[in-house]
């Protein structure tokens, strides 16, 4: 019995042992874009996204400082933080999930592999399950991940006043582009 427990623990811990499979970035890029027919572009970039990827298990997490989203227009940025995502109340947005088909990605061979990511997205204090298609690119030992998906503001309790309803659409396109490096 003892042997079994020990071996079970050994096997499972072996899967997660070693830092050979932990990849990290602090300069990942996340952008969003609102598709409304507005003369003013509602879009913003964040180039300070941190993320960790475990290439063995496919586990993937993201942490984003909401205030680091930058808009072309200063006032839009202020309103985004003040009125929509309430970044002082909810400073962080996170994603905790995994690449469900991690086994199809061959990290030792260069190429682009289609993947599906599933997990919990937390934004504006609301956690919601999201699933998205994307790709993982392996090139000369470097790993990058790309995904584009859509969220509904309603799902995250972000309300749009009727006055600006024609300027901001309910659906927001989100693009994720991260280049990972092996965590030392």
């Amino acid at each position, binding site marked *: 019995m003892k042997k079994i427990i020990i*071996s079970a623990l050994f096997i499972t811990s072996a899967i997660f042992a070693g830092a050979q499979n932990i990849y990290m970035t602090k300069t990942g890029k996340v952008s969003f874009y609102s598709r409304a027919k507005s003369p003013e572009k509602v879009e913003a970039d964040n180039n300070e996204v*941190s993320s960790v990827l475990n290439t063995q298990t496919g586990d993937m*997490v993201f942490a984003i400082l909401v205030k680091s989203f930058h808009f072309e227009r*200063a*006032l839009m940025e202020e309103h985004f933080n003040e*009125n929509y995502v309430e970044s002082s109340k909810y400073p962080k947005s*996170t994603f905790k999930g995994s690449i469900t088909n991690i086994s199809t990605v061959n990290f030792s061979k260069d190429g682009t592999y289609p993947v599906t990511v599933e997990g919990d997205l937390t934004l504006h204090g609301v956690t919601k399950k999201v699933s998205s298609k994307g790709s993982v690119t392996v090139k000369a030992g470097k790993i990058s991940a790309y995904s584009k998906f859509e969220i509904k503001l309603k799902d995250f309790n972000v309300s749009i006043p009727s006055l600006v309803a024609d300027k901001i659409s309910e659906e927001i396109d989100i693009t994720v582009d991260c280049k990972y490096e092996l965590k030392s």
Partner: protein
Amino acid sequence: MKKLFLALVLLTAFGIKLYAQDDLMKMLEEDSKKEKKKDYATATFKTSRLINGHSIENVAAGVLDVKISHRFGMVNRGSYEFFGLDQATMRMGLDYGISNRLMVGFGRSTFQKQYDAFYKFKILRQSKGGRGSSPISISAVSTVMLKTLKWEDPKRQNYYTSRVSYAHQLIIARKFSESVSFQLMPSFIHYNLAQGATDPNDIFALGGGGRIKLSKRLSFNFEYYHILPISLVAGEGYRIPGTKNSIAVGFDIETGGHVFQLQFTNSTGMTEKTFITETTGDFFKGDIHFGFNLSRVFTIKNRKSKKH
């Protein structure tokens, strides 16, 4: 036995899988703790004016703010004057952000046919985290005002410089919470030529004001300037005789690129020297002007390279 073994493997694997994501998250958190980023307080007020006077806010770099302000007549003048709405004084102004710390502006008021120009510079910004964080913000504002009414006595030798007066202010502000902000405004006003022989050329005042947000897009504001009993010249008064301290209460209503400010104040003018030192209305006797400021911002220069 085999079943037990499998169950154990599955259980621990499953457990660890959940745990692993949290573990990765912890990794990120620890990493971000190491390099704390400075977090500046933003949107202490909704716009660059509190009510009559300046707030701690600037317009951002490359942004033009068109301001149109009205003060109607006094509400206690009754229905004949339609509670003051029959009269109005007005100021049209343009503000522009040269950098994120420096803004300039100018305006024209119907009251005393004044032109005014000012700069506002952010000396210190309220921030937390990182090195050298500050609990307060400090800005400096200097305004020059030019009265262009016809000379009262054209026969006298009149000088152009006699039309000019100056206001220098420090604004010390703190955003206490999302909804509560306060500021203090030590102010100094200088007249090149005082109205009366015994009127002071230099007047000191301390202003105080703040806002309480009632909802995301609506806030209640108040502003008060107290003239200080400081006289630089013996025998002169410290204030213009017959004037009162300026009081104003109002609401900021924000709708996208516009901010509407509705207010009740005992001041008629909208330049610093006029509302701080020349207010004659008694707020508590109903000498109250209803008024509004309308602000519309235009982004002149887009931020091409977004900050990192």
